[in-house]
């Protein structure tokens, strides 16, 4: 993880790092500390009557059956999103790398969805899958599948996984494509001359050389699945039916924004943050060792 060659300068690194440290101190750490402090308090919406309650907000979480269920729901959701997101985009990138005719067209079409604002994306998905109005649910009905994500928990989960993965495919695809195209052709050719088939070439050359990209995307996708998917659930299932799609982050935002329960929301944020930090540390400790720079 360390470069072999490093510069020695007494003051310079501090100067270089100062702007970012300044910005994040004022605009991240200070507000974040205050937000997290709220996890130890119960207050009314306007902060007029604030009481210090120590660990009560946290204890309430552990004693809440629905909170504990949402751990499981979140785990399933995040795993599916990360695996499908990375897997599908990798596959698309591999074939995009091979195909010569129409490459520009394919690449553009696969990248443009990245420009869609999350607010609009949620609306589009509901449009397509609405049991009454949606074209996709209509089509599924013709195939004999009675799509109803309003009452069927698995359908609902499928819906939010699809919406979440869709948003990430463009992003992942780009990074993978770039990674693949950076592998010197000479390596591939040499392997082909040695008689290695496409599949073998992939596993012995391309995949290892893609590892920095894969690692980066693994971390980013995990963070995305845990933190940025609120908007999707909010636009589509609202955590329902029942609590089938109630992922941890949904409850955080719901409590913080709609329900104005800032203490509860802050406590949940602390829990969520701890999980993600733990997962990231694990990734850096164990997986980065396998990354070839």
């Amino acid at each position, binding site marked *: 993880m360390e470069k072999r060659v490093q510069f020695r300068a007494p003051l310079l690194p501090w100067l270089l790092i100062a702007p970012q440290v300044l910005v994040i101190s004022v605009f991240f750490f200070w507000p974040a500390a205050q937000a997290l402090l709220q996890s130890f308090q119960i207050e009314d*919406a306007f902060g007029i009557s604030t009481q210090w309650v120590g660990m009560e907000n946290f204890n309430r979480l552990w004693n809440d059956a629905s909170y504990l269920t949402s751990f499981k729901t979140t785990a399933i959701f995040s795993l599916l999103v990360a695996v499908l997101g990375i897997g599908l985009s990798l596959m698309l990138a591999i074939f995009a790398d091979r195909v010569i005719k129409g490459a520009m067209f394919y690449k553009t079409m696969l990248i443009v969805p990245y420009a869609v604002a999350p607010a609009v994306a949620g609306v589009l998905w509901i449009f397509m899958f609405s049991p009454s109005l949606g074209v996709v649910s209509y089509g599924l009905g013709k195939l004999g599948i009675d799509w109803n994500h*309003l009452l069927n928990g698995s359908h609902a989960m499928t819906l939010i996984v699809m919406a979440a993965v869709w948003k990430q495919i463009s992003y992942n695809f780009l990074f993978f494509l770039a990674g693949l195209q950076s592998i010197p052709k000479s390596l591939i050719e040499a392997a082909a001359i040695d008689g290695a088939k496409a599949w073998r070439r992939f596993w012995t050359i391309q995949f290892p050389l893609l590892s920095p990209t894969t690692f980066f995307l693994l971390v980013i996708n995990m963070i995305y699945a845990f933190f940025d998917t609120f908007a999707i659930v909010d636009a589509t299932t609202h955590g329902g039916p029942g609590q089938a799609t109630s992922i941890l982050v949904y409850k955080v935002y719901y409590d913080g924004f709609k329900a*104005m329960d800032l203490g509860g929301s802050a406590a949940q944020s602390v829990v969520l943050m701890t999980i993600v930090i733990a997962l990231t540390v694990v990734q850096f400790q164990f997986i980065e060792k396998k990354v070839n720079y």
Partner: protein
Amino acid sequence: MNFKIAAVALAAAFTVSAQAQTEIQWWHSMTAVNGEWVNDLAKEFNASQKEYKVIPTYKGSYAESMTAAVAAFRAGNAPNILQVFEVGTATMMASKGAIVPVGQVMKDAGYKFDPTVYVSAVAGYYTAPNGQMLSFPFNSSTTIFYFNKDAFKAAGIDTNKPPTTWPEVALAAAKLKASGHKCPLTIAWQSWTQLESFSAWHNVEFASKSNGLGGMDARLKVDSPLHVRHIENLANMAKQGLFIYKGRENVPEATFISGECAMITTSAGFYGNVAKNAKFNYALATLPYYPDVPGAPQNTVIGGASLWVMAGKKPVEYKGVADFFNFISRPEVQSASHKRTGYLPITTAAYQLTEKSGFYKEKPGTDIAVQQMIRKVTDKSRGIRLGNYVQIRQIEDEELEQVWSGKKSAKEALQAIVKRGNEQLERFEKANK
């Protein structure tokens, strides 16, 4: 010389007073057509006088706007007027020091405040136990019943005698199903229409302490025999394919417009949409009830939002707010608003003015909502004001969905609602000591 100085001084005085127009910041959540309505109200008021300028700003959905206001208040720059949805009423009320009661604002500005000019079911909701009006009713709607006349005709149901009771609704649904209709009945805003309004309509308690109007120690009472009976009926209808669940909040409304579902209970504000987009004959009717329950039908409860006045602003601004509220209470303004948006008129005078203009005859059904509200309210039907109500609505949605999908019985679900809901109420009580 003196003349010149006097002239300059006079000119300066005029300039200063002309620029001393006090700005009144109004944060709202009205979009599209309703957004235009808000802007027009402000424009008309601003044109009618020179001292104050009301500046409406769209601040996102009700939830987003509230978040913005909370953040702004904590930072010391709250708006003067904030539009808050009815579900957030308890939160606003309980934050003593964050708001100034409307009654107080009007009184301080010298307006004589007469509570009787207001439709009691509308204003009563926003009034404190001691009779003081806390917020200004702005866009209020209530729950009514819509049905598809063409579908009824095809099923052989007499469209001149629409179903008024739940047994009649079930019968109509069965006939519709027999004639091949896939979705006889659906429900929007299920907690509002089937639990809250349902309770008031039947003059039974939704929660103790007059549904929360009497104090923060109110607790839910929706596991009563009547409630269980009703939800069980709906569950049975769901099992038989007579009632199809089409989603939370107002999502099911689209299925009525498209003709997919033949009957729906939802907000009176849905009327504008139906009038514009439905390609079939439709009619409005009162919310169904159970005829064997004494006191039914009583009145339905309010939905929509009201305007709250935030604390901590300059005294001159409060006078401007009072002037503005006075302006929009005028019967002509009220009546025009009501006709334009479908929201209820707040004063009886406005209702009468609208009636006299023949509006209700021209657009049949538009007075049903008012009819349901213009009654003398009881302690159990004045409205519901509970803390953490946003979460409680979410809980109600979650539990009812489990009933519709057959996972829980009506009794189990309602008891779960009471248990989980009461936890929320206790927490609210604690947070607002």
